């Protein structure tokens, strides 16, 4: 057992010592007792006994020594450890080597000092904090993870851009990194994507909406005349569009586990959460540097402000903490606060560091270099702040009447400018607690329970991330500002790496680090480590943490603009396409699907709703899943629809079924799965039938008459409209034959609108086909 050799071992020992203080068992298990166990006994057991007497499965003699209960119970020969009884404890008999039938460890006798320690321990009543049976798997034997081995914690430096053989292919340095790796593996990039697919790809990726047929035509014509410059201009236009924030702000909202309601039996509303949502969208549109954005998210209330407007926006930004998942119907007030803090830490950890901090609430992290002390050092910072805002006053939650969700009805408009700060300050009372009163360091909570308190841990950060202290933790402040500084410090390699990787993931559908939220030991290592560091340094230093210019650079790379063609031979070398020699198709995400369908039917409302907060009264028996969401609300972009933490209304199935994130977790990863329930929705839901009906009606109205050539013209028009691409004549003819076959059935039924209905079914089929459902 190498605990003592590790640079961070003291942390573990202090943590363990802290636990000792609060652990009270039947025997006398004072802090000294447990400390003695930790210092003297546990290392002996680990080094000399665990090999045969620990873990699941067959242990020798049926004896396990790796948790208290088993050690006392003993094995086939009897009780190994009898507290207080040195002579009868078989463990002692065995290590003394006096009984020929019982000599342990079998190979070599322990030193006299070690034997004395064990005897002393039994005499003390064998204090032993190892309550729970250890789980079967462990990365290291019994200690803390060695931080120096973790790639993501290594200092961030600008790597050299590699040379490539084919110097004509790369368009920028990103391409050089990728091509160099391809060349090493003897892979060749496929052809560039055709212009139609590229334009649709840009639209859906950057603003989340498909281009109209007319706009597509204009762009393609311009591109034919003036070349690739047009694409650059298009990218700039889209990055400047207010639609950009509605797409990219939503990415952040996934990480902020954004929701308009909280968990708990009476379905509490997060009635002002929409202010936070709009704020995030606005910040993404403004292109605020991400480090500044982080500081606002964590400590916006502590920043100076030049205007009321700025002050209220900064307050609203702390909704990142205020949206915490907590069950306010839990009666145990301590527990609510601790669970809320846990959620905040987990959210900060996953979103900005790619580490799951929450595990350390009860024990040192098994896989990542985070100790229980680290956890309570961070928790102390949040414990010293009041961030339970956003929840509507409890008095609202009575009565059983269920009303509808409203959108933009002006029921609770934002007050005028003069009142704004007062209003926001009332609703977002994120604030520091009073110095000396509630601002304080926390004690270790043994096994996560506030009923078993360990020693005080000074507020601070994760020790394994080597950032020279930003500024000392002041006694009269919570430390949130310092936490934000620590996160954005140039010495902290994680946030730029994590964010650069996320941007890559949002653009390509797969991160260079595939586990976008896990940069720890159990995560995946980067496929292109140098490129990741290049992107991270580029983001932080060259672009000054601005996201838009990095997006621009990536989408203008040749790699991003590749076609999706397959290559059988190259598939063998790189079956998953991680080397970026081709474009990997992705299904439309929930919001893209919702927004695209509304765009197609012409129903989309591209205005900013004042608010779309759920407007209903709640009771204990209320179940939101049957809540009706008015059609007028459903026509907003998906980002503006209300988000429910429990009982998601069935009206939101278009999002729920297509992997809209669970707002109870911070998660940057969107699943992409295929389930029969999705297929049933696509086949049979009102949403699809309504969209295709509206489209059919619109097409019939704009192309009246029915000359023989009309079918083919309409099929060509639909192809451009729905797929964003003119397609080929053979494809048009297939659509025509489908239309005619279906029309016949309707005619035999005597349907007066047989032709329009047949077109409706054709449109429906096109909408649920891969060509529409995927970004290719």
């Amino acid at each position: 057992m190498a605990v003592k050799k590790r640079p961070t071992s003291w942390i573990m020992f202090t943590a363990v010592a802290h636990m000792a203080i609060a652990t009270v068992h039947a025997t006398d298990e004072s802090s000294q007792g447990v400390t003695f166990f930790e210092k003297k006994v546990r290392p002996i057991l680990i080094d000399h006994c665990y090999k045969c007497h620990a873990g699941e499965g067959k242990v020798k003699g049926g004896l396990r020594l790796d948790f208290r209960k088993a050690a006392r119970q003993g094995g086939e020969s009897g009780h190994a450890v009898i507290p207080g009884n040195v002579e009868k404890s078989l463990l002692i008999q065995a290590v003394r080597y006096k009984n020929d039938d019982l000599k342990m460890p079998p190979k070599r006798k322990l030193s006299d000092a070690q034997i004395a320690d064990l005897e002393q321990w039994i005499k003390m009543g064998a204090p032993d904090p190892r309550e729970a049976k250890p789980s079967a798997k462990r990365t290291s034997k019994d200690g803390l993870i060695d931080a120096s081995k973790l790639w993501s914690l290594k200092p961030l430096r600008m790597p050299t851009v590699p040379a490539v053989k084919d110097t004509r292919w790369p368009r920028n340095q990103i391409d050089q990194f990728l091509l160099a790796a391809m060349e090493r593996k003897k892979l060749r990039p496929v052809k560039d994507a055709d212009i139609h697919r590229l334009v649709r790809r840009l639209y859906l990726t950057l603003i989340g909406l498909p281009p109209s047929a007319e706009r597509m035509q204009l762009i393609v014509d311009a591109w034919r005349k003036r070349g690739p410059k047009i694409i650059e201009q298009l990218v700039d236009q889209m990055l400047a569009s207010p639609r950009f924030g509605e797409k990219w702000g939503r990415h952040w909202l996934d990480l902020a586990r954004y929701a308009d309601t909280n968990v708990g039996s009476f379905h509490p509303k997060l009635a002002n959460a929409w202010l936070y949502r709009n704020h995030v969208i606005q910040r993404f549109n403004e292109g605020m540097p991400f480090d500044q954005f982080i500081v606002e998210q964590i400590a916006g209330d502590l920043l100076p402000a030049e205007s009321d407007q700025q002050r209220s926006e900064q307050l609203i930004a702390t909704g990142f903490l205020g949206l915490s998942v907590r069950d306010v119907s839990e009666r145990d007030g301590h527990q609510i606060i601790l669970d809320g803090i846990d959620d905040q830490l987990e959210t900060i950890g996953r979103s900005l560091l790619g580490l799951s901090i929450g595990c350390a609430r009860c024990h040192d992290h098994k896989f990542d270099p985070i100790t229980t002390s680290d956890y309570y050092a961070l928790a102390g910072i949040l414990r010293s702040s009041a961030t339970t805002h956003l929840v509507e006053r409890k008095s609202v939650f009575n009565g059983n009447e269920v009303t509808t969700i409203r959108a933009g009805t002006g029921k609770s408009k934002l007050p005028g400018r003069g009142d704004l700060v007062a209003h926001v300050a009332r609703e977002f009372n994120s604030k520091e607690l009073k110095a000396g009163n509630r601002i304080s360091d926390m004690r270790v909570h043994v096994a996560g329970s506030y009923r078993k308190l360990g020693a005080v841990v000074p507020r601070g950060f994760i020790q394994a991330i080597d950032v020279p202290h930003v500024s000392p933790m002041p006694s009269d402040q919570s430390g949130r500002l310092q936490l934000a500084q620590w996160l954005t410090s140039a010495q902290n390699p994680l946030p730029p790496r994590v964010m650069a990787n996320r941007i890559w993931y949002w653009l390509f559908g797969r991160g260079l680090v595939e586990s976008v939220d896990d940069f720890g030991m159990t995560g995946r290592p980067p496929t292109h480590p140098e490129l990741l560091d290049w992107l991270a340094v580029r983001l932080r230093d060259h672009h000054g943490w601005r996201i838009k210019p990095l997006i621009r650079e990536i989408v203008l790379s040749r790699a991003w603009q590749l076609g999706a063609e397959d290559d059988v031979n190259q598939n063998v070398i790189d079956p998953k396409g991680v080397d970026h020699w081709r474009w990997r198709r992705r299904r439309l995400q929930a919001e893209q699907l919702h927004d695209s369908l509304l765009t197609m039917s012409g129903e989309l409302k591209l205005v900013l709703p004042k608010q779309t907060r759920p407007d209903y009264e709640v009771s204990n028996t209320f179940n939101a899943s049957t809540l009706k969401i008015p059609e007028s609300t459903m026509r907003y972009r998906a980002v503006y629809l209300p988000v429910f933490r429990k009982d998601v209304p069935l009206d939101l199935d278009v999002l729920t079924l297509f992997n809209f994130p669970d707002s109870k977790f911070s998660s940057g990863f969107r699943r992409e799965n295929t389930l029969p329930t999705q297929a049933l929705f696509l086949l049979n839901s009102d949403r699809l039938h309504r969209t295709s009906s509206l489209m059919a009606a619109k097409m019939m109205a704009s192309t009246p008459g029915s000359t023989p050539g009309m079918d083919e013209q309409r099929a060509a028009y639909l192809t451009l409209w729905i797929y964003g691409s003119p397609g080929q004549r053979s494809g048009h003819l297939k659509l025509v034959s489908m239309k005619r076959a279906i029309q016949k059935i309707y005619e035999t039924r005597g349907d007066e609108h047989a032709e329009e209905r047949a077109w409706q079914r054709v449109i429906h089929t096109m909408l649920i086909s891969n060509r529409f459902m995927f970004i290719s």
Partner: protein
Amino acid sequence: MRETRFQVDDRSKAFGRRSMLRGLGGGFGSLALAGMLSKTAAQSLRPQLDTAAGVSSPLAARAPQFAAKAKRVIFLFMEGGPSHVDLLDYKPELARLHNTKLPFTELPQSIREGKAERPEKFGNLLGPLAKFKKHGDAGLWMSDFIPHLHQHADKLCVIKSMVCDSPSHAPAVQQFHTGHPTLIRPSVGSWCAFGLGSENQNMPAYVAVSSPAGNANCGNAFLPAAYQATILRDAGQPKNKQKVGYLYDPENAGDIQRIQLEHLRQMNHAERTEPGLDGLINSFELAFKMQSEAPGVLDLSSESDATLDMYGIGKSNQDQPTDNFGRQCLMARRLSESGVRFVQVTETGWDSHYKIREEHSERCLSIDQPIAALLGDLEQRGLLDETLVIWAGEFGRTPLVQNENGRGHNPWGFTIWMAGGGVKPGFSFGETDPFGFEATTNRVPIHDLHATILHLLGMDHERLTYRYAGRDFRLTDVYGEVVNDVIA
């Protein structure tokens, strides 16, 4: 010993991943692929799909880890907390001292300290609200609130010493379903679906005929979405309403849909998705299969009048008190029979703080006959031996009166029962104190119950794990002991 340990580890991994990949049981082919590709990178399911010759569905039936006593579960959940002292936990001492006041110092600490509710709300001891008698050869005590169930006394395995960790509804209900009172975890049904798959590839593995408040209680949390509950809509409604979402074409035009699907297949073939993901088309095929099978399973109209009568389903009179719950129980039997692994039925209205006599007798009237019918029906069809039926609320109620005519929350000692699927029939386990305040012998925490349920299904609760966010999660977290005493 080291080797042994590695074997154990490997086996538990294989259980999560390889066996799923190997057991190519027909199924819906590469649909699975997509489901499995939906991994978060931190998950343990990382199949080498690209090289696998074939893959099976995430719902393909899988062999348990060891010989199972039960193949499937029907979980009858009584939301709100039914009163153990009025139904199954007979307390003669409570009856004797009815309407007398226990000295404050003799009350359990939990009540004195107001752990659940304010002590001043409580009054005298409130004796059992219905007569108790011994029933069956086993002589189980049962009250007259549940007369139909008396005939099945010799099938029940009653646990009178349940405890849970929270005195509030939401956390307690959540703990009953997921093991954890507040954090979001997969529900026990999702774990069963994950561990065993579905016996019928045209049906989901986990169906909630009705779910408790908070759909998270039937959620898959971080488990793949294939293991979430399919929650029936309008369950218990008399008319043939749409119970799984989107099962019917709005025009009911199967012939037209056929044409659409044929063209869709061609169109998608021309526009293939990722290598190995062509099976996306198959999800439409499966949807089509479900469209044909599920409505049949969900349609009660093929049941005989005798069966409907037995369950108390009103043929003309839908106001009959047993009608709704009867439909749900019958639906549960049909789903179980069709191979659904885990079926949940929920009955609310047990939270009687004010008028427990009236409310409990109403509730019991609604559920008693249907549950008795369900047990009899399962037995008659030879399904009871392999179907584990569980009846439980999230906690029990106080022996003290509250608000004059009610009872308060009691998570410190309450009663549940199980039947069928490998539990001891006609058996009573554990005890509370003479008044029914607290479990005194053989306390059974929720984790132990969960460990036992998994055990009966042939799974070791310590080895049914899923890697998420860097650690292996279990239904029982780091707790849980199988209650061997209740296993036949």
